[in-house]
């Protein structure tokens, strides 16, 4: 009787193998489920890869695009001569339509104190064309950056901008890091 109750070597190997395979399957399933859970991942643009080609404005399924310019104030120089606000060839640094680079006048310029000016984005007017971002990168600190606004973005399964992006700057990122602004540490959402 004692010998029958005893766990023999063959049974031990069988059970160990089955348990191992079972645990592996559960692990892989959990990993894949987490990875593919679209609710926790969103599309976002990496500003360090963005080449400001203008396709964010034209390829989004929404009109106007869910991509908007965001101003990272920590990086801004608050310059009178702002490359993101003013056309490169302009000689007058003012708010005249002919001086502005933005096609929809979505950037507002306000005098702070000599010699500083503050620039804010009117999100309703921004179409995500990236012209200001290009100007800011060419001239200034790169404080104007394009980002998908998640309160507008419908988070398509396959983002049509990502498909058209020549710089492969778009990727799915965890919801906790939904905004990929550069120039300072990303705030982590709880």
């Amino acid at each position, binding site marked *: 009787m004692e010998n029958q109750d005893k766990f023999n070597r063959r049974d031990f190997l069988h059970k160990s193998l089955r348990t191992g395979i079972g645990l592996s399957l559960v692990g892989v399933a959990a990993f894949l489920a987490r990875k593919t859970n679209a609710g926790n991942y969103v599309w976002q643009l990496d500003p360090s890869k963005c080449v400001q080609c203008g396709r964010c404005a034209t390829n989004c399924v929404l009109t106007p695009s869910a991509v908007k310019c965001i101003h990272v104030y920590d990086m801004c*120089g608050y*310059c*009178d*001569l702002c*490359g993101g606000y003013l056309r*490169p*060839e*302009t*000689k*007058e640094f*003012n*708010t*005249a*339509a002919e*001086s*502005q680079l933005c096609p929809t*006048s979505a950037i507002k*310029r*306000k*005098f702070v*104190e*000599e*010699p*500083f*000016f503050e620039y804010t984005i009117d999100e309703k007017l921004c179409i995500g064309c990236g012209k200001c971002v290009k100007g800011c*990168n*060419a*001239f200034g600190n790169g404080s104007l950056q394009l980002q998908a606004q998640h309160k507008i973005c419908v988070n398509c399964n396959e983002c049509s901008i990502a498909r058209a992006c020549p710089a492969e700057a778009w990727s799915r990122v965890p919801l906790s890091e939904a905004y990929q602004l550069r120039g300072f540490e990303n705030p982590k959402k709880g």
Partner: protein
Amino acid sequence: MKEKAKERIVLSVVAGIGMVAFLWWFFHNPVRDMKANVPGQDNRPLKTVMSDSVIIGEKFKEYGTIKTTLTGKWPRFRGADIDNIDKEKIKLIDKFGSSGPKILWKVELGDGHAAPAIYNGRVYVLDYDERKKDDALRCFSLETGQELWRRWYAVNLKRNHGMSRTIPAVTDKYVVTIGPRCQVMCTDPINGNFLWGIDLAREFNTEVPLWYTGQCPLIDHDTAIIAPAGTSLMIGVDCKTGKVCWKTPNSGKWKMSHSSVIPMTFNGKKMYVYSAIGGVCGVSGSGRDKGRILWETDKFMASVIAPSPLVLDDGKILLTAGYGYGSMLIQLVPSGDRFSVKILKEYKPSSGLASEQQTPIFYRHHIFAILPKDAGAGRNQFVCVDENDVTKILWTSSKTDRYGLGPYLLADGKFFILNDDGTLSIAKANLSEFQYLDKAKLFDGQDAWGPMAMADGYLLLRDSKQMVCLDMRTK
């Protein structure tokens, strides 16, 4: 009857709807919420209130004296010959070696890009003390970094991408500086005694440039050459008395740029070349017509100009500016007692040699520069062109060796290139290829944009907050 009544009702309804639609169309203004973008919506004050309380050179303090045998000179912006080439016969290192760069001393400086001048073992640098709100000319020992004296004056500045950004001009008898708010000061180079001062904003109605003054003064035979670009375009000031000897009228109302006045001699005529906001000109620097405009052009119209005109052979001048503007190659053509200007080439930074901040180096009929960040594939690379074809890049430092807005100079047949982050690279001055030799990180700095200075084998360089002296001599 019923049919007619129906028709009338339908017609009346249609007419009513039509009338309502017409009235709505007539009275509705779809753009009633739109406002025209016109100047002045940013609430910019009409005129900046200028402080007239600056007393140039009012304060002085001496810290020590030195006796030195050093005779090397880097007496002004771009060195003795204004070409950014050190011509001393001193052998300099090719590599930093296992022990790394030999840092002799470091000095904390105020936020800015003002660079030093060196004269007979003394270092002169204009520095802004943000805490005390003082603009000071500081004199140091080249060998030890000990501060010898400082001459300063109170002037209110706000941090704006750095504050001080000019280089003193030094001779045996004078040091001339231009401060961030356009205050010109002349002192004795040995004891720091104040000689004279001119407030360009107050006396010549100069508009202080964006991010403060970038123009470095020039001393030519005891005359300080300054471009106020206000009521006068350029002036010559007797260094002994501080009196203005000659003035060039500013009929085009050009404004001061960050570029400096560069001397040039062509066709036997000495002239001072200045690239202002509004145009470029050559002002007579010799003879009875000193101060007269010999030639000018308003075709070079960049909004911001930091590099100075680069004088090439045979009356050619390369003009370049950053922020997407590009470059222009002009040719002076003698015309009676004046000159006409012929534009040889004009191109964007992606189509040839250009520079955003530093003035390129002209050496053995070739031009060397770091391309700006908007130069396409060649962005931030150190490149070389032949002076006869400035749009054909002969070689680059390649994608793996990109630099920023930092300075570069040539000494002992080698280029010394400082990156924004404080990394110093050495490359052989080779016309046929970029021949990298070595590099070393000197400090964890940022915005190391101030030009370097070299004399007696000592290399002075800075980032936005400190100045470092390296011994570059071979053992």
